[in-house]
């Protein structure tokens, strides 16, 4: 349909999460039809992001400064670290605005089948932060999967020597959710972790 340059652009878009070939084609078409209003600002934003984005050396977040703005924020509790798998998980928690401590991004979860080992995880900076002695609690906010549970167990063993409290997110009934539509595993977890009211 379009020339090779356009097809290449569509191909690049289609590799992004959440976009398939059709939606990539629609997005590219919109950009090309409005070059001044859409394409040029996108190019400028991409260039700026590529030039300035850094991985935070403390927590693994993405930001234009290192350490990131969350690690620099003096209002955040330094004694509380929430450990997440990905930057996307960190941003999701930040959107909720419920965690007032610091973060740590592991960059994956342990999986022998996928080749993710303790060495490939972003662990060393976390161990350094714990050696400082300021941290009193680690919250494990990892996915509820076999690999997420393995990683949580592994970390709880590995971090035990630091004498910090290790907690993990509870599992159960989602806000606004009705019991009848929940799967049995979630219902069982919710019942297991019930609390007095």
């Amino acid at each position, binding site marked *: 349909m379009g020339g090779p340059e356009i097809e290449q652009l569509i191909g690049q878009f289609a590799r992004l999460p959440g976009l398939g070939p059709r939606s990539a084609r629609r997005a590219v078409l919109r950009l090309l039809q409005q070059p001044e209003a859409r394409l040029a600002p996108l190019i400028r934003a991409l260039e700026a992001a590529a030039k300035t984005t850094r991985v935070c050396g403390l927590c693994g977040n993405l930001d234009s400064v290192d350490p990131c703005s969350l690690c620099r924020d003096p209002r955040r509790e330094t004694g509380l670290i929430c450990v997440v798998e990905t930057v996307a998980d960190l941003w999701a928690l930040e959107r909720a605005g419920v965690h007032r401590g610091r973060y740590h991004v592991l960059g994956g979860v*342990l999986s022998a*089948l996928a080749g993710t080992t303790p060495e490939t995880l972003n662990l060393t900076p976390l161990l350094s932060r714990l050696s400082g002695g300021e941290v009193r609690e680690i919250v494990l906010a990892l996915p509820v999967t076999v*690999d997420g549970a393995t990683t949580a*167990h592994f970390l709880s063993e590995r971090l035990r020597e630091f004498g910090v409290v290790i907690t993990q997110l509870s599992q159960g009934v989602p806000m606004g959710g009705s019991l009848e539509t929940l799967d049995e*595993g979630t219902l069982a977890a919710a019942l297991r972790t019930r609390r007095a009211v």
Partner: protein
Amino acid sequence: MARLTRLQLISFRNFALADWEIAQAPVVVHGRNGAGKTSLLEAISLLVPGRGLRGARLSELARRAGGQASEGWGISGWFDAPGRSFTVSTGIRPDAPRQRCFLIDNEPAAKQTEIADLLSCVWLTPQMEGLFLEPASGRRRFLDRLVATLEPGFARLLASHGQLLAERVRLLRLGMAEPAWLAALEDQLARKSVAIAAMRLDYSLTLNAALAALPAPFPRAHLRLACPLAERLAQAPALSVEAGLREALSAGRAHDRETGTTNAGVNQADIDLLDTEHDRGAAQASTGERKALLVSVMLGQASVLRRHRAAAPLLLLDEPMTHLDAARREALAETLLAYDGQAFLTGTDQDQFRGLGGRCGMIALAG
């Protein structure tokens, strides 16, 4: 109980378009070899979530003509149940070839469990007759499929357990055996193994109670679960069995590295079907006796499901009369005539079904 009143197949297996009205039960499907008798039963089994009675992949189900597979296929069943009528459809749309969809009354089902709430199936196929002469893994799969019909979370539990086994063996083989990582896998393996053993044990007790109540002349079948973990569960609290398994896994690392398998846990379990009257296992039984034992188990499973769901499942029996003697054919015919659910039977020869005395529906497949 849901009764199938009409079945329609589009581009499924060897059927381009087929439509049957089903007025009477039981239903005998007969025709020569390759006419599509098993495919018809498979179509009914696919109306319930799962891979159906052949365990086929999605890509194998589309009709092939001139070397080309059809781009989509569909199965629709019309059901009458007390207080309501409904249709269930499943298939592949040409625009989404990798995703099987389910419809209830022509609306997409929000969850597959919605269909499982409406319908259940029990099936017997000739392939099952070889189960007791083959490796134990096939028998475990057979048992687990039965357990999963009663325990909704069981299939997911088995899948996680399988993943943990694969992860542990890979870690051991690659020598990436950081102790805390292995301990994390073994902790989860122990908890999931004990949960699986407990569910298998519960199921075997339930099934054996149902088998003991089956009428003669079906053999007095008894499912024997050979699983050290389940035996320990009968004598000790689950937490202590879990702790014991964790220790065994930890102690067995060197051996498991050598063998490339995990040598403790529910993956070592096996089952046998005993004919209690003759005190003989299925592997030692004759072909006909083994078939009769399997028929007993399927009737027992139907009885368990009927009690559990307060509705009798659809019984899909592929070549059930083959290898049975005249007395057992007669008894099976009587049992199916009295069955309060709906049974579908296949056979090449109508004479096999004489015991039904014409009190059945007939579907003749010409191929």
